[in-house]
């Protein structure tokens, strides 16, 4: 069987679409697991032949218990391929599960396919410089697939089986004591068509206003590099573009005062057109730029705002 699990509904639909393809090629059933409450009926309509709904021992995701639950289900059946939703929880879950099952695992796959009956998994390595193609030599083959890697195929009326289970897990001494939701700003850089992004070239938090003025003229979403979100916390992590932040592919990406460390490039390399402004003519961002201005962002940004405003009549 091909088994799908993600702790997120949208991501589960994406995995079910790809899982259905793989299951059909291998001529095996596609099964999904829900821990706690979920949309078993919708999962069947999105391709699952069977959905296990497992009573959750916990209120929230915790890798130790969730891994025990999945291992328990998988050991009862012959799982060929296990697709895990590749958010942060999924990555730690897949890795722990792989250890428990003595299985191979590839995380953050940008594509998976079949080579005969072996899974091929492509993953970005060396800080975004290369793609490594992995071939599984054993079963089950465990992969994690990040959100938005695959489209969700349309759902259809189809029959499937729902199996309710209670699985006893070992009791682990670690406990979740608090969950703090960060204030969401309703920013979605991943869906943005135009991004104006700032980096370490900014001298103080208030100067983000200058970036906002340009973004307003272009109807752009504001992005930033790691220091601005993670170290200085001038913008929330929703804006963070990079290897550990968000991966974006806008039509236009304007990098202001961003040097272009490889970790940042990994997050914006799929942009259609890239414009960069940086004081340092040798900054690596210029290698990734279609158009560039060597100069001070404090001088260039107000002029860009003015010029775009005139040309676009906005």
């Amino acid at each position, binding site marked *: 069987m091909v088994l799908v699990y993600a702790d997120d509904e949208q991501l589960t639909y994406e995995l079910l679409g790809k899982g259905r393809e793989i299951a059909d090629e291998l001529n095996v059933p596609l099964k999904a697991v829900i821990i706690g409450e979920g949309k078993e009926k919708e999962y069947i309509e999105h391709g699952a032949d069977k959905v296990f709904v497992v009573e959750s021992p916990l209120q929230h995701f915790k890798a130790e218990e969730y891994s025990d639950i999945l291992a328990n289900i998988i050991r009862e059946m012959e799982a060929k391929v296990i697709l895990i939703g590749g958010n942060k929880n999924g990555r730690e879950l897949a890795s722990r599960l792989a250890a428990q099952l003595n299985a191979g695992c590839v995380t953050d796959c940008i594509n998976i396919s079949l080579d005969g009956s072996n899974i091929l998994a492509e993953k970005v390595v060396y800080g975004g410089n290369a793609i490594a193609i992995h071939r599984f030599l054993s079963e089950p083959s465990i992969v994690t697939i990040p959100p938005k890697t695959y489209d969700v195929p349309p759902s259809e009326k189809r029959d499937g089986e729902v199996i309710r289970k209670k699985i006893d897990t070992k009791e682990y001494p670690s406990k979740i*004591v608090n969950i703090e939701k960060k204030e969401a700003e309703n920013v979605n850089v991943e869906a943005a068509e135009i991004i104006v992004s700032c980096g370490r070239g900014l001298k103080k938090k208030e100067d983000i206003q200058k970036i906002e003025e340009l973004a307003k003229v272009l109807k752009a979403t504001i992005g930033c590099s790691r220091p601005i979100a993670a170290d200085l916390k001038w913008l929330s992590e929703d804006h963070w573009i990079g290897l550990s932040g968000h991966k974006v592919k806008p039509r236009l990406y304007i990098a202001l005062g961003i040097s272009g460390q490889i970790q940042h490039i990994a997050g914006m390399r799929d942009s259609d057109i890239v414009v960069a402004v940086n004081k340092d003519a040798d900054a690596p961002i210029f290698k990734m730029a279609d158009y560039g201005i060597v100069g001070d962002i404090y001088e260039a940004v107000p002029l860009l705002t003015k010029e775009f405003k005139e040309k676009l009549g906005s």
Partner: protein
Amino acid sequence: MHVIVCAKQVVDVSEVKIDASTKKPMLEGVAKKISDIDKNAMEEALKIKEKFGGKITILTLGSPEAKENIKELLAVGGDEAILIKADGNEDYYASSQILAKAIEKIGDYDIILCGEASIDQFSGQMGPRIAGLLGIPQITYAQKIVAEEKEVMAEKNLGDSIVTIRSPYPVLITVTKEINEPRLPSLMQILASSNKPIHEWDVSSLGKIEAKVEVIETKGLTFERKNVIYDEGEMEERVKKVVENVIKEGVLG
């Protein structure tokens, strides 16, 4: 308190170039270093040792040349290191099996610290895999660790939320790059570190372990960009040209 820090020697990914003809990454001769986030793990270990005393053991799976980089971790305050010598072709499964077996052999430990991922492969598998093999709790993506006598609290950063987890020892924790700023060793520390032991173990002493995945190809990513850079003339002119070009591209909808 006995802390084990898992540290990997990696190529400096910012130095990796792509061969224009073969489209393969050129890894030969690229400088090597301890993976950045493993240094953050080391820094947390030092803070725990400062609070409770005890010992820090550095555990590395890699080639004999990794010794040079391990010395940096001994210099900042590691007590001893174990280098498991291997050829570097181990997959995630084999590497974690080897590290877990080595940790079992070390025996007594309270905390295992790892980076959330290595900067070369960025798989994030090692920490959770080792915890799974040892059957101990794991706390991943920690942005803050508060160690107490009997238990540890850590904040797991999920991006849109922060999950605080409490665990008694032993526990495995993986840290993010944001958790701290790793210290640099003083000259005295560097000199003194040459007397600290680096035990070399042969990978075969831990048993035979077969890989579960193999890398069949690594393709370099190259990008075609126009690279039209304006670096002279009045700023107004430079800006005008860029704006003109962007509008011509038709990307403004």
